[in-house]
Structure formats: C-alpha cells, structure tokens
C-alpha cells in the first residue's frame, strides 16, 4: 500500500480506519487494483518517472461525510485531492496534481436536489453528469434544457469548477462557471459554508441571486484549492424550441477581419446567440480537391495567390462563418435576416447559405441525420453524447490510434490580425519542434466558446512510447512559453503542468497573484491538506521545493 508523502505509516493506517468508520469499509480504496483505477491513462507521464499517482481513495456519500473526512485529513496531515466524476481527460483525469495524495472521489454524491421548472435553475451534487440531468428532464417530462459539453459523462460541478465550456446558447452554460448560482462548500478545515443568498438559512433564492451580501467569493472555490464544493446551483434554460444554422461566405483572404468584427457586433448584441465557428472554404484540413491540397503544405508560408486562383476557378469563398441561432424559427428568421443585412453592408461580395432549420421536438428522421455532413451535431442542440471520442478512435484513416492527448489551449484575442499572428507564430514553433501540424497551420481558427476570446486548441498525442511522450511534454511547455511571450495565456491546463504554466503565465509583479493565492491558502487551509499543487498553489511546507518562483527567491 502506498503512503502519502509526509505521513507516517501508523498515522495513515489510523486515518484509513477513521475513513472506514465515516463512509464504510467498501468505500475506502487501498488495494493496488482499486487505486490503479485513478491513474490518468491520458497522461504523457504514464508509466514513467513523474506520473502522478494516488495512494488511496475515499468516496463519501454526504456533505457530512466530506466534513468528517476533512477533519481526519487535518488531524493526520493527509494530502487529499477532490474529483467529481474524474472525466477531465486530457487535463489530468482522476489523478492528483501532487503525487501520493489521496483522492476524494465524489462520484457517489450524484443527487439532483432541486429543479425549478418555472424560473429555470437546478441544484446538484458533484457526481451528477450531463447525461443524468438531461435524462432526468426527459423522464419527468420537464420542459428544460441545459447547454452541454461533449463528452457528456462529465460532472456539471466539475465542468464549472475547471472552467469547462460547451457549445450552444451563450448565456446557458457555454462558459459553465458563469452560470453558477450558489455553492455549498466544505472548507479545508471541515467547516461548512453556503455562498450567495444561501448564507441566509431560510433563503428561498439560493439559486436565483448569486451575490448575496458581502464579497462574492464563489470564484476562489473554482479548481478546488480552498474547499470542496458539495452542492452547486446553475441557471439553465427552458426547452429548446428551434435551431437554425446559417453560413456567411466571404471571397477574400483579408475579409476575415470584417467577418469576425461583424460577428462580434451581432454576437455581443445577442442577435446571433449560438456558438459561431469560423473556417475556410479552401484551407480546410478536410479539403479533398487534390489541386487545393497540393497548395496546403504541413507548414511554412502559403501561396495565397495560387489558392485565390483556385478559389475563383471553383467559385467558392475564402472564409466562412457558421452562425447558430437557438430560438423559435420565427424569431431566428428575423435574427438571420438582420445578420444578412449587416454583413451585406459591411463586406462586398459576401453571400449566404442556410444549412438547417429545426423545430423541437425533433422527428426521428431529423434525429437520424444529426452528426452527419450538412447537419448539426447533437451537442449543438443540447443533446448529450460521447461523439467527440469518434475522432480519436481507430478507424480506416486512423488504424493505429493513440491513448490520449494533451490539450495545448492558449487564449487568442477575437480579431483577425491576432489569429493570423497566432497561425504564423505556432507554425514556426511547430517547425522548430518538428511537430506534425496536419494539413497546414494556416487553416486553424480558434474555437469561440467564450464570448470575447478564442481558444487556439491543439492536441499533442499521448501514447505508450516513453520517448514520444517525453517529447510531447517538452513540446507542450515550449508552446506554452511561445504563447506567453505573445501575451497569450492558457484557458485551462493539465494538472501535471499547472505549476509550470502558472510560473510562465502568472508572473506579473513578481508572481503577486500566486503570492495572494498562497496567503489565502495559509489562512483557509493552514495544514495544506487540500489539492496541493492544483494550479500551482502549494501549501507552505512544499513551496520551496515545488514552486519555482520561491526557489528563485
């Protein structure tokens, strides 16, 4: 049996006995087989020096049990790392940031506690998944929906706390944390707080007004450094009534600027209310035309004149914007008409295409077309699935699949000149590191999950070849530094690189933000038991060893 670092064997045994008394022996996992289930099989450190491993796990069923576990951890100084459903694949999964920590597995706490069908809120526990809550709505004929990510087997709370993103309506969970309303938190010392109006014991508006009185503190409980969130409220939405997807095509390379700027106006005014995708008619990684493909080297500058000639011959555009509207069709018809008017005035030569207009509930025939070319993906309609795995699984074009991936995910301003700059910078970085970019880096456009920034998402492959994994790790850190040098920070990052990323991207004023986090840590979690190392926040006794900004003095 592994023992957490800094803990004596006798203390650990005593603590395990106390954990068993709290949750029952069947929910304390110490056997090598049971503990191995918490390994991160997507990790580039897998089976190599530096892999973050778990010493044991405990799985409570109630908030009171979580409180009791925190008290035991404090008594014996046991590092513990909470997970909700542990499905944060590519970002650390169920493994702790500080190797040897115990895992606090909250999956058993999977109750949907309250659903307000009139004013559209829910209160849930950490183990509740997107699959589960949508099924709950359907089983109970509740006219409710929720913006969901794909894969949908993740936790609502975990998704929010790790700043996860989704795909549909701007205000209903595409930026999950922004829809949170009210938390119940077990602090590291075992005390229990409720945030917002939940601080009033008799409150009937805990899920309706998020601020309460006094400082708004929910943000510090994201990423679980200072407390374990055992309940969280969310604003959801009435059931989808209609969905419309339309394309705006523009003819010239330089039109990307106006294409995005106009979309900002439409999106930020709420007229285009779905998630917009931008892409290229001629630089798509999926371009099948052999003449076009010949113009798309994996790296290096493009012959834009040649591509433009091919575009004209084929009478196609250079860029497109795919606008999604989540509204009844009568409403979205007017929204789309307005978008066409604004684009026509702003970009000479642009043209429009309407891909699909759907009313809910969908017919079986409409459902059968989802996720096929020319039709929406389920996730864009708020329908849960795991379809994102399809891309990485074995198929005729991918006969030798990898085992995971590492998300390099820098934020980029939502502006064409920054996107062009990012393409140039990362193309050069990929060439310097010998990373295969696929068709061409210049086809890459950020994902606009967030309202005002893009995520220049790129995955680095993880397998079972230690040398290749070592290179992926070095590539990742190199790319993070390249991005930081340009002023671009990661939007979230894998647990095993969080200290390095915070070092590279949170250095303003001698890492003042990190020092502030550490001050909070010392106050709220003086024994440093909770989530050691999560996003580079280490307890006092480990800072000198683990936090580079302290080593540098």
């Amino acid at each position, binding site marked *: 049996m592994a023992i957490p670092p800094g803990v004596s064997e006798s203390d650990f045994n005593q603590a395990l006995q106390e954990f068993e008394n709290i949750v029952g022996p069947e929910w304390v996992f110490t056997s090598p087989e049971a503990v191995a*289930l918490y390994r991160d099989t997507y990790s580039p450190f897998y089976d190599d020096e530096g892999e973050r491993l778990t010493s044991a796990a405990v*799985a409570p069923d109630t908030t009171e049990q979580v409180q009791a576990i925190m008290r035991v951890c404090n008594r014996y100084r046991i590092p513990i790392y909470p997970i909700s459903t542990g499905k944060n694949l590519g970002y650390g999964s169920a493994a702790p940031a500080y190797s040897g920590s115990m895992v606090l597995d909250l999956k058993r706490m999977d109750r949907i506690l309250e659903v307000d069908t009139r004013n559209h809120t829910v209160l849930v526990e950490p183990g509740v998944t997107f699959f589960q809550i949508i099924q709950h709505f359907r089983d109970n004929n509740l006219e409710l929906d929720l913006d969901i990510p794909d894969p949908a087997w993740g936790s609502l709370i975990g998704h929010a706390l790790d700043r996860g993103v989704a795909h549909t309506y701007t205000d209903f969970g595409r930026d999950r944390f922004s829809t949170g309303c009210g938390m119940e938190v077990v602090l590291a010392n075992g005390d229990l707080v409720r945030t917002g109006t939940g601080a009033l014991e008799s409150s009937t508006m805990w899920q309706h007004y998020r601020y309460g009185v006094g400082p708004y503190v929910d943000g510090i409980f994201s990423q679980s450094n200072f407390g374990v969130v055992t309940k969280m409220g969310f604003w959801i939405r009435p059931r989808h009534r209609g969905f419309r997807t339309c394309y705006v095509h523009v003819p010239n390379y330089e039109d990307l600027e106006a294409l995005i700027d106009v979309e900002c106006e439409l999106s930020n005014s709420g007229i285009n209310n779905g998630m917009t995708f931008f892409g290229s008619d001629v630089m798509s990684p999926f371009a099948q035309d052999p003449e076009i493909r010949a113009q798309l080297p994996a790296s290096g500058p493009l012959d834009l004149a040649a591509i433009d000639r091919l575009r004209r011959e084929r009478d196609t555009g250079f860029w497109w914007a795919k606008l999604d509207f989540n509204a009844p069709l009568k409403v979205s018809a007017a929204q789309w008409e307005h978008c066409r008017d604004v684009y026509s005035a702003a970009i000479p030569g642009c043209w429009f295409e309407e891909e699909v207009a759907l009313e809910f509930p969908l017919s079986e025939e409409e459902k059968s077309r*989802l996720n*096929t070319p020319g039709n929406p*993906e389920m996730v864009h309609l708020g329908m849960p699935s795991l379809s994102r*795995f*399809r891309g990485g*699984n*074995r198929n005729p074009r991918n006969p030798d699949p990898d*085992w995971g991936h590492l998300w390099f995910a820098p934020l980029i301003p939502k502006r064409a000149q920054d996107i062009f700059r990012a393409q140039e910078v990362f193309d050069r970085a990929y060439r310097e590191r010998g990373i295969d970019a696929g068709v061409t880096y210049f086809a890459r456009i950020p994902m606009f999950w967030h309202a005002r920034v893009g995520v220049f998402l790129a995955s680095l492959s993880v397998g079972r070849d230690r040398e290749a994994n070592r290179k992926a790790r070095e590539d990742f850190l190199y790319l993070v530094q390249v991005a930081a040098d340009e002023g671009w920070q990661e939007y979230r990052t894998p647990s095993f690189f969080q200290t390095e990323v915070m070092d590279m991207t949170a250095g303003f004023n001698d890492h003042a933000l990190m020092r502030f986090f550490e001050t909070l840590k010392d106050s709220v979690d003086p024994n440093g038991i909770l989530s050691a190392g999560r996003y580079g926040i280490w307890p006092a006794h480990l800072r000198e060893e683990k936090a580079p900004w302290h080593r540098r003095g």
Partner: protein
Amino acid sequence: MAPTRIVLCLLGLGVAGIAAAQDDEAIAAGEQVYNTWCVHCHDDDRPWSGGGTMALQAKYQGELPADLRERTDLSPELVTTYLREGLYRMPPFRLTEISEDDMRALNAYLTRNNPE
C-alpha cells in the same frame, strides 16, 4: 417413481429455475450497466456514437461482430481487464462508477450468448 425421487426431482427443477431467474436478473442488471456506461460508444455505430463500435469494426474487419452485444466469445476476464485498465481512448472505470456487482452483471450480459 418413488415419492422421494419425485421430491428430489422437483427440488432440482426448483433450483434450476431459481438459477435461471437469477441469471435473467443479472443479465437485465448488466444490460442496464451497459446502457449507462458502454452504449454511448459501443452501440450500433450511429453517427453520434463515441466510436467504440467503429473502432472494433476497423480492428476486426468483419471477422468478429463489432457490436459487443453480438459477441459470443467474450470472457468475464477480458471484459473486466479492459474496463479496469482502459484501452486506447477508453479510460478505466472506477469502483464508484462500475462496482464489482455491476461488473458481474455486465459480464453476465456480455457473455449471455456464449455457447455452453
């Protein structure tokens, strides 16, 4: 037939009946586990599937059914190993997700078509 033997035969039939009922119960429970945890990838390969069936189709090229529910050669040991260790993009499933009882039921379901 002597009365004692008749009683024993009836008892035997009863035990067999109980065992069959228990099997049916386990298979039904296993199907539920499958539909909770597995079917999103290991289905009949609809376009929104996670692609487990697609991957097995690419692997077996028709030599074995790509849909796990149609297999007649799966062993409990194999199923348990894959679910507990993970394989390629499929991560391992913890005991808080698929318990030992769930695993037994799932194995009953996935081996139900195996020849005796």
